[in-house]
């Protein structure tokens, strides 16, 4: 009888995944979980417990221990104790453990998938077919890196103890992205899962036990933001890796500014989804389903900003609406559900609030008519059209199933709109013309560009953002590098400030020969300019003798320098061969002026060092000229029919506080790798001998370096640093100096989350080519953009 009814209606009907194994697992644990520290389970020291809920019903799933600083301390100690033994294992042994974890993830894949869906609310199809397989893939891939580490990363050592904080949108996948590379590189970890979704991390702890992973290698401490904060601030953590909101990322950057923790951040996004008129529109609409209606839109790289070419906008909107009408929203354990539950009430409130604000600002809101479940946290797929760049829904991350649609007229405008954001995580380009697609892909400021596809991930391909979407990559070779340091750097002696402070005496030393006045200026936009302040700073020899006066740069000079650097895009667009030629020419001209420059420099650093600095400087420039056309990207082989092109791109505009101790060689050691990959630089030369600027600009002027590629502002580093570090149009800062200076660089760069590279309180021997030059600097001078290009006809 009812079959007959269903024969007529042809409805889908329910197709629930049975949660009984996961419920039994929860029951076996008494629905109450402590911390996994040093290989065993621990009750919370003092923090008590909080509830984790099933967002599809709002019902409690289990009690979860709230981590306090004492618990974090215990976990960090366990990780510290475990580190030497873990690092002493052969690479092959570490590979075996990672391989074992991959196997175990596969063996328990359904338990993990169902737990994930229950705790997070994502459709079982996604946890079963996407999240968990990617988790296994990540461990397999990194078992490989563990095996190959000595050959592939020679002279590198692990960071040590790594603190990792992960979000609630892909709980186990983010755990894998964090733990697999950390372990493969030889680190031990303390991981804090998200408060809303701790269950799969705890299930993973059991897998670590089953894999007989040595105690303390992986430690898991649950809790809220305060637990994470304790981990971030713990003095014995060598590195923090965080995935989450830009707001929290900024706080972590500020909190880690004092001290020398390494930091990688994978933050928010407002990723553009660009559809050209020559795209396969039906497929592009499916791309949007994968882009913004994946995981309820709670995806940092969700294609949340739709940019449509005007000529197809109407057709496209109609197709999108039709497709939205067939999306099924409902209980996430149903196998035929497209959109499950929003993770928590607070997130649902946020989505509702932001959509309301978008509508108040003029957007047209369309939602397909559909009934949402009466219990739990659900939000329907939503299309906001008539959105303008000024609207909050075009600028801020909503983290919900909400698409904001805009139009563009030309490819140029598409790029302009796409890049009109503080974020830069991912992007999609849909066009059947490979010329259009790759031309646009190359111009997008984003760590990932998906051409004619959306939200594809693979362990072999680095994932991470530009701009305020964070820094560092996860996956691939570049992801491994985040968990390692050059061995020499790890063991470098502590930095001690050289006695370069200006002497107090203002008097000329008697009997000195009157010198011909030499007026050194600032070098901005390829021109010698007087400082805005109209003041100069005295430059003295080691014996206190006044050598001359250097212009005293100020905020406005920095501002002008940044503007000039931003305009110098000819340098970034120059071919690698062309950049190499210019750098060689610099070396050639430096060689021509050797005696003159040595003579000047000798007054500050002595004849011997001056000679060495110039000679090694020539070598260093040669090195980076050589690198310029050899620091290539890669083509990855993810398990799809496509090529993933990993391009090394310049970061953009980089501020450099040069090391004091080697005024010329230090300048070249930092500025040249940046130039080699196409950055524009604002350099503050050594306070010890800023007069070097006069020699440098003559060198650059005669070497065909385009104006603005290098800008030199002399002055007191501590003063100029602030303007540079706070400047939102500076993309990265390199700072060498004492701890106060370096910490200030980090703390002041939180505004636009600049990438920061520093000497981390260590003394770098610029005269040793093993330390002073090479790939390590280039890796920090470039960022990787992965362009996914599926192919097939």
């Amino acid at each position: 009888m009812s079959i007959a009814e269903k024969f007529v209606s042809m409805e889908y009907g329910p197709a629930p995944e049975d949660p009984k194994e996961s419920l039994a697992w929860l029951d076996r644990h008494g629905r109450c979980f402590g911390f996994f520290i040093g290989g065993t389970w621990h009750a919370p020291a003092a923090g008590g417990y909080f509830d984790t809920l099933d967002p599809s019903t709002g019902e409690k799933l289990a009690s979860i221990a709230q981590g306090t600083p004492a618990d974090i301390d215990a976990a960090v100690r366990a990780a510290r104790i475990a580190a030497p033994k873990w690092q002493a294992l052969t690479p092959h042994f570490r590979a075996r453990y990672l391989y074992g974890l991959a196997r175990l993830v596969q063996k328990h894949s359904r338990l993990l998938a169902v737990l994930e869906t229950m705790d997070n609310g994502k459709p079982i199809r996604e946890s079963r077919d996407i999240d968990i397989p990617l988790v296994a893939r990540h461990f397999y891939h990194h078992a490989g890196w563990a095996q190959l580490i000595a050959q592939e990363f020679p002279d590198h050592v692990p960071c040590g103890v790594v603190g990792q904080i992960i979000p609630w949108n892909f709980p186990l996948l983010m755990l894998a992205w964090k733990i697999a590379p950390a372990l493969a590189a030889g680190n031990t970890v303390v991981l804090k899962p998200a408060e809303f979704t701790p269950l799969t991390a705890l299930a993973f702890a059991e897998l670590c036990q089953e894999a007989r992973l040595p105690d303390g290698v992986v430690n898991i401490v649950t809790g809220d933001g305060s637990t994470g904060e304790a981990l971030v601030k713990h003095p014995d953590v060598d590195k923090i890796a965080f995935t989450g909101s830009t707001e929290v990322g900024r706080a972590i950057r500020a909190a880690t500014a004092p001290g020398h923790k390494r930091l990688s951040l994978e933050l928010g996004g407002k990723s553009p989804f660009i559809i050209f008129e020559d795209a396969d529109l039906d497929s592009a609409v499916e791309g949007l389903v994968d882009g913004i209606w994946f995981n309820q839109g709670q995806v940092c790289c969700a294609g949340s900003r739709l940019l449509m070419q005007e000529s197809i906008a109407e057709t496209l909107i109609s197709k999108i609406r039709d497709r939205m009408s067939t999306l099924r929203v409902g209980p996430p354990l149903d196998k035929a559900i497209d959109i499950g539950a929003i993770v928590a009430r607070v997130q649902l409130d946020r989505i509702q609030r932001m959509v309301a604000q978008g509508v108040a600002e003029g957007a047209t809101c369309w939602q397909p008519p559909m009934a949402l479940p009466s219990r739990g946290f659900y939000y329907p797929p939503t299309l906001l059209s008539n959105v303008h760049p000024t609207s909050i829904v075009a600028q801020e991350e909503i983290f919900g199933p909400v698409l904001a649609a805009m139009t563009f007229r030309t490819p140029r405008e598409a790029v302009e709109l796409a890049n009109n954001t503080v974020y830069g995580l991912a992007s999609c380009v849909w066009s059947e013309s490979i010329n259009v697609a790759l031309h646009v892909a190359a111009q997008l400021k984003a760590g990932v560009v998906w051409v004619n596809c959306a939200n594809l991930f693979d362990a072999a391909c680095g994932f991470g953002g530009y701009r305020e979407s964070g820094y560092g990559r996860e996956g691939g070779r570049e992801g491994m590098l985040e968990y390692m340091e050059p061995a020499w750097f790890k063991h470098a002696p502590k930095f001690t400030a050289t006695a370069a402070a200006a002497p107090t005496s203002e008097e000329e030393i008697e009997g000195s020969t009157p010198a011909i006045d030499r007026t050194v200026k600032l070098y901005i936009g390829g021109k010698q300019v007087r400082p805005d302040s109209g003041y100069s700073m005295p430059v003295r020899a080691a014996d206190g003798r006044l050598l001359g006066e250097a212009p005293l740069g100020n905020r406005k000079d920095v501002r002008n320098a940044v503007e000039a650097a931003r305009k110098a895009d000819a340098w970034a667009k120059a071919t690698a061969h062309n950049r190499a030629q210019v750098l060689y020419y610099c070396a050639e001209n430096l060689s021509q002026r050797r005696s003159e420059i040595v003579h000047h420099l000798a007054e500050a650093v002595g004849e011997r060092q001056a000679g060495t600095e110039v000679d090694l400087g020539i070598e260093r420039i040669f090195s980076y000229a050589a690198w310029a056309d050899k620091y290539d990207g890669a083509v990855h082989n993810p398990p799809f029919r496509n090529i993933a092109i990993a391009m090394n791109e310049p970061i953009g505009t980089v501020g450099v506080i040069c090391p004091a101790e080697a005024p010329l060689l230090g300048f070249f050691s930092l500025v040249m790798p940046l130039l080699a990959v196409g950055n524009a630089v604002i350099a503050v030369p050594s306070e010890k001998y800023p007069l070097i600027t006069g020699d440098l600009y003559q060198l650059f002027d005669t070497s065909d370096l385009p104006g603005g590629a290098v800008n030199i502002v002399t002055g007191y580093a501590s003063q100029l640093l602030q303007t540079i570090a706070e400047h939102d149009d500076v993309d990265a800062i390199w700072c060498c100096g004492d701890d106060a200076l370096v910490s200030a660089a980090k703390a002041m760069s939180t505004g636009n989350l600049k990438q920061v590279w520093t000497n981390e309180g260590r003394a770098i021997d610029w005269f040793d080519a093993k330390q002073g030059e090479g790939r390590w600097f280039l890796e920090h001078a470039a960022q990787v953009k992965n362009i996914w290009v599926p192919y097939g006809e």
Partner: protein
Amino acid sequence: MQAGLKFALRDSLPYNYNSVPAMPAGQDRRTESEIAVGPPHSARAIATLGGRPLLANSGIPLDLNWIQQVRVNTSAVEHRGQSQVARRTVKKQWQAAWLLRAITCMDLTTLSGDDTEERVRRLCAKARQPLQQDLVQKLGIEELGIKVAAVCVYHAFIETALTALEGSGIRVAAVSTGFPAGLSPLAERVAEIRRSAEAGAHEIDVVITRGHVFGARWQALYDEIAAFRQACGPAHMKVILGTGDLLTLRNVARASVVAMMAGADFVKTSTGKEPTNATLPVSLVMLRTIREYAQQTGMAVGFKPAGGIRSAKQSLDWLALIKEELGDSWLRAEMFRFGVSGLLGDIERQLDHYANGRYSAEYRHPIA
């Protein structure tokens, strides 16, 4: 059973179920000449798309611009095909109901060199009674009168099939036009259609000249199919694109559009004789062209995947794909057919499993 359901069930029999709203006046935006291309069809709506009533296809003039604007991204289509299968599933009673629906959308087919009249009669008997009586009772579906949509044979067996199916409402389809290669002289192919139509075939499955697609001879392709259309007379024409030969999805989409413009009632993937037969990506591309054509012209074209669909699970995947892309209105024999020879056996076994709770064996079900 409620009265409403009874009404729906009566309507749900092949050719007549799911009441479709009549075409409102002024909805038909075709020009006189467009309407004149095909044989006169009744103004009754045969399907709906997004609530819009659609007429039977009478073709439109060849629109080369449309063909040139066809865009198909193969990787994205394949991805959608894979993801669709994982996104939709039906279980329990719903699955049983869907499998029954699949039976009613079958063109039960025999197209072999060793076909005989007796073999065709056997097939027709199975078509009339695709499920054993006890299974029908156990499922409680007697009143649905489940039977296949049509039997598909060579011209030589039209008469045999008509006789064997008399009074059943099951249609007889004949393959034609030099099936499967379609390379005999055009006049002969047209004559072949006429002979089959005169012999009483309700439906004619014609094959296109694939070479016209490779050579982008769209006018020639259009003219050929339009000639077939003329020859079919009142019989329904299913146009086989030979997608396994066309190879690229772009070719499939273009050929599909031309076939619809030339008046196809159905577009059909393959003859069952090409190296690759019906696949989900190919079907998805054809369904999208059907949707586009319906949106542009207000006319509905049916779809028939053929060859290679052997499992009950596959049939559910296809039904779900059609439901997603075109809507429930296409889930009827009027608009959708499976061209199959081996599918029914697996569906029977799955229904047996549903009814009896244990797995069945092939030999326990009467063969065709």
